């Protein structure tokens, strides 16, 4: 800091304190997030004040109502034109209300709702200690069916905290793709990450694996957050601001009113490039791109399956939303620098995910690697740097999230005495014994593989088309090759289910409550509707494809 600046600091401090203007908050435009946060807080109060017996019902009721209300709010805002003509930046420049934000928020809320149904499932495991149990542990150290769990249940350590945790995570995810300054971005990141770390540790069965997954996720997540934060600091150093618009102006060189105190450090490209790369790295960690993907299989496998499904879907939507906004709003002036790097990341992500998935033997790990490959496909759309790129990614995310939650919901149904039977060998011949469940899972697998008449095809086609139009034809070629590799292991599971002899002591398929059925049914319905008649939704995504700056 130079001498005159210090002087001015001293002098202003001596003057009478001017009134601080109350921040102008557009509550209506932020209502989707506010509703969910409010419901989460109510959920905490429910934990404190509602009798144990009715907590579960109260929590489910509040959560469902809140998510439905949030979705209604999103739709109302979009119908009001906030996605297109009235798009603007709300909350004193902290949060953008525009097409991509609303589209992604709608997707996240719906994914959260479907995820909530799987969270609330209480009929898959047999009744223990006189009460129905769900997928979550009553107490950290208790083994299912043990005395300690019995004691925990008797003491009333029920598992209904998962609902407020879920709502907090959703609220963070709602802000994440809408964040319009770097600090809001970081706060949102932590708001949705911390509940997820916790949720990962809560599996009722395979406790150690669940805890290990949570610790790994937390450690690596914290590590990645550190990079993100450091990147934010460097960017602030570069631009003298954390506001997206301001940084973009500095990058373009169109900024006029430079604060003299920052003039010396501003515009240092090394800060910009390093900071930008680190920030992008933090987001690539969240979407699970190679080489920042290594947490994905372990965490997906260890976390309670409903959490895995929700996380795999909603985190990806939120993180890709934030990445899009970062690359399209903050760093478009830098695209000749980041595009080649993202090319490389997309290629190794697509190929890496698809290739390693070939030799997986656990269905949850298989789906984890599949999600890595899909991250690569979506990155191809991100790289297009066009409006079509944005809308194709939005469409892809919407289709993909329902397929993912549905697929993991099916995984929760296939059980043996030790809980979910996730080893692939146990799925042999499932189609003979439970044709409906196997057929539904086959639909999801075909959607993952991108077979026509499923949402996977429409999404992949849109993304690859946008990438090819953006000049990334080699990327598309590699993407198609990866799809072919990926098709192998998806189809292999179908072959295993329908064309193998069932094992004598194979798993049974639990009959779920209507909640899980609803979740799976919505998954199938969305998958087929987006696959058979995608045009309306493509148009919707296309309308929503413009960021406000």
């Amino acid at each position, binding site marked *: 800091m130079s001498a005159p600046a210090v002087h001015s600091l001293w002098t202003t401090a001596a003057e009478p304190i001017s009134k601080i203007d109350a921040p102008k908050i557009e509550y209506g435009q932020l209502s989707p997030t506010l509703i969910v946060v409010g419901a989460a807080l109510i959920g905490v109060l429910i934990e404190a004040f509602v009798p144990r017996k009715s907590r579960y019902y109260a929590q489910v009721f509040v959560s469902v109502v809140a998510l439905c209300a949030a979705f209604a709010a999103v739709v109302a805002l979009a119908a009001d034109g906030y996605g297109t003509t009235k798009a603007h930046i709300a909350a004193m420049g902290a949060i953008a209300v525009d097409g991509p934000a609303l589209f992604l928020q709608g997707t996240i809320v719906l994914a959260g709702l479907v995820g909530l149904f799987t969270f609330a499932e209480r009929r898959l495991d047999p009744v223990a200690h006189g009460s129905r149990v769900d997928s979550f542990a009553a107490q950290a150290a208790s083994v299912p069916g043990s005395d300690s769990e019995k004691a925990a249940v008797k003491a009333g350590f029920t598992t209904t905290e998962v609902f407020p945790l879920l709502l907090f995570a959703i609220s963070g995810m709602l802000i994440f793709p809408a964040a319009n300054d770097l600090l809001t971005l970081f706060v949102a990141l932590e708001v949705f990450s911390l509940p997820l770390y916790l949720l990962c540790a809560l599996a009722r069965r395979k406790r150690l694996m669940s805890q290990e997954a949570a610790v790994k996720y937390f450690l*690596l997540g914290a590590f990645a957050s550190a*990079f993100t934060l450091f990147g934010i600091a460097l960017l602030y150093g570069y631009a003298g601001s954390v506001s997206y618009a301001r940084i973009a102006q500095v990058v373009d060189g169109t900024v006029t009113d430079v604060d003299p105190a920052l003039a010396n450090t501003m515009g240092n490209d090394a800060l910009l*490039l390093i900071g930008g790369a*680190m920030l992008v*790295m933090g987001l690539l960690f969240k979407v699970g791109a190679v080489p920042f993907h*290594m947490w994905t299989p372990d965490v997906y496998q260890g976390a309670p399956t409903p959490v895995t499904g929700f996380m795999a879907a909603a985190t990806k939507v939120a993180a890709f939303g934030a990445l899009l906004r970062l690359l399209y709003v903050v760093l478009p002036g830098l695209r000749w620098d980041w595009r080649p790097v993202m090319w*490389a990341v997309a290629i190794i992500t697509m190929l890496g995910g698809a290739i*390693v998935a070939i030799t997986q033997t656990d269905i949850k790990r298989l789906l984890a690697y599949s999600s890595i490959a899909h991250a690569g496909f979506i990155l191809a759309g991100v790289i297009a740097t066009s409006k079509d790129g944005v809308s194709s990614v939005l469409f892809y995310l919407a289709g993909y999230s329902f397929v993912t939650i549905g697929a993991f919901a099916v995984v929760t149904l296939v059980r043996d005495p030790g809980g979910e039977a996730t080893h692939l060998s146990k799925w042999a011949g499932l189609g003979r014994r439970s044709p409906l469940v196997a057929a539904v899972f086959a639909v999801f697998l075909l959607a993952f593989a991108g077979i026509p008449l499923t949402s996977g095809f429409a999404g992949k086609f849109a993304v690859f088309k946008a990438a090819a139009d953006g000049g990334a034809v080699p990327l598309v070629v590699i993407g198609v090759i990866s799809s072919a590799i990926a098709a192998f292991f998806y189809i292999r599971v179908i072959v295993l289910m329908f064309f193998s002899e069932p094992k004598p002591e194979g798993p049974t398929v639990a009959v779920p409550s209507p909640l899980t059925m609803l979740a799976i049914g919505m998954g199938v319905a969305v998958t087929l509707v987006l696959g058979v008649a995608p045009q309306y939704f493509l148009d919707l995504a296309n309308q929503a494809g413009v960021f406000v700056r």
Partner: protein
Amino acid sequence: MENLIAPLIAAPLLGAAVLLVGGRRLDRVGHWIGTLLSTASFVFGLILFADLLGKNAEHRTLTQHLWTWISVGGFQADVTFRLDQLSMTFVLLITGVGSLIHLYSVGYMEHDERRRRFFGYLNLFLAAMLLLVLADNYLLLYVGWEGVGLASYLLIGFWQHKPSAATAAKKAFLVNRVGDMGLSIAIMLMFTTFGSFAFGPVLSHTGDASEGKLTAIGLMLLLAACGKSAQVPLQSWLGDAMEGPTPVSALIHAATMVTAGVYLIVRSGAVFNAAPDAQLAVTVVGAVTLLFGAIVGCAKDDIKKALAGSTMSQIGYMVLAAGLGPIGYVFAIMHLVTHGFFKAGLFLGAGSVMHGMNDEVDMRRYGGLRKYMPVTFITFGLGYLAIIGFPGLSGFFSKDKIIEAAFAKGGTEGWILGGAALLGAAITAFYMTRVMLMTFFGEERWKNQPTRSPEAPSAEPAAETRGEHSEPHPHESPKVMTIPMIVLAVGSVFGGAFFSIGDRFLHWLEPVTGHSEGDSPLSATAVTGATMVCLVIGVAIAWARYGRKPVPAVAPRGSLLTRAARRDLFQDDFNHVVLVRGGEHLTRSLVYVDHTLVDGVVNGTAAGFGGLSGRLRRLQNGFARSYAVSMFGGAALLVAATLLMRAV
């Protein structure tokens, strides 16, 4: 009035639907439903015919547009029907002869428990055949074309419990596929050449297309015609198709479906007129087939196969005439109609004989039947006189015109084609006399049958299935069968004269097909005289061999030509050696390439990725520290790469 065209097709289609979907409940009345709807179609045809006759010759084309079938960009296909003199002629033939044969089948199939289904298929055939001749574009025609192929397949294999019938149906279907390919390629060529496949745009713009393209289209149409009309080289299925019930042979494999190829060529006359090379190919195919079929017909002891050879030969005449261009179109169709009468009558007569002879088909086990079946004898005899061209009967007028037209082609070609046609007339007289003599004259060989010799060529299946080895008791067929035969016999006798006197048929059809008198080196009288001489020679030889001498009940070994003709002039051997073996070799080598090269590459790639996957997954060792290192390395690379991008 054009609104009556659709019901014409719809009536038998409805019959097919009702009979095939209706199930057992309709077993007792099904055959009458089928006959009624077929007759209804005939009545519609008559009404339309009367309407056409009431108009001037230029205004005798009715079109009915039902709906747009396919419309994609410049590709437009309509469901539109076109009724002109040519299709009217076919409609009357199809529905008229078809209704008679429905009636006949009521008696013929009386003891078959699947009679209802049989009538359903017959109605389906009628609908498809009517669609074929009434379509206003080639694509819709193709639908009918495939439809009659399907009906033919179903009816040839109607007695599917006999392996020979099932095989024959399959054979007919496969051989027809080759022809169908020709038609589909022709339609594609038309679309690329003319941008349409409707009759109007294609046939009136042949001047705009190059002769090469028209020749290609013409040859593909000829291939299609060869398949459907059993012309060389796609003739092999027709003989085996006689495995079907005899009414089927009469309707589909003599009177109507097999003439679809002639219809196609005459309908596409404008294309052929502008492509002389394709026309020449048509005449060659016709001439070769008319001799081929006649020679095969001479050697067969199975009455239906002898008639099948004859059918092939007579259609050869029609194709020959159609290949001659405007000189011959009218006579091709005229012969087609008269042939429809007398050949259907002959087949029904053969069926009547079989009906009275325990389904025996071997003519060497017939003989002297005229006393037992007088009506059959007389109607068959009239058909016989008509087909050999006995003066005054149908065949005389129509065939004579074709021979004249062949000579009128002019030049060496004219002499060769005319000579072939004359030779064919002599052979026709020979083999038909042979059939007549072996069946109705001579000693009664069905009495005191010796044990069946293993060489007896084709008599087994029928006798085996009925399991009757007792001596037959020949008897006349019931009225429901003889009445159609009588009606057809009347047509065989008077049809030709009716058409020819005052050139009625010529004036009727000329507006559609055009007509030109050729420049014949021989006078009409000379040609007729030559034909008569050939006829007498043929009949005389046959009398000398089968009339004067007793017919041996077991076929003698015969000359080389006889043996070749018994084997259908080695058509199946040729197909087997060239096509089946060749195809097998081709597929085997392709399979080899597939197994070694393609599968090798595929499996190698898969194994490569599998191995890579096995290596890469070891990086996922479960230690958070390793993951963190990987992330750190990745971040470092990311930063370095970004900086590097700026540097370069």
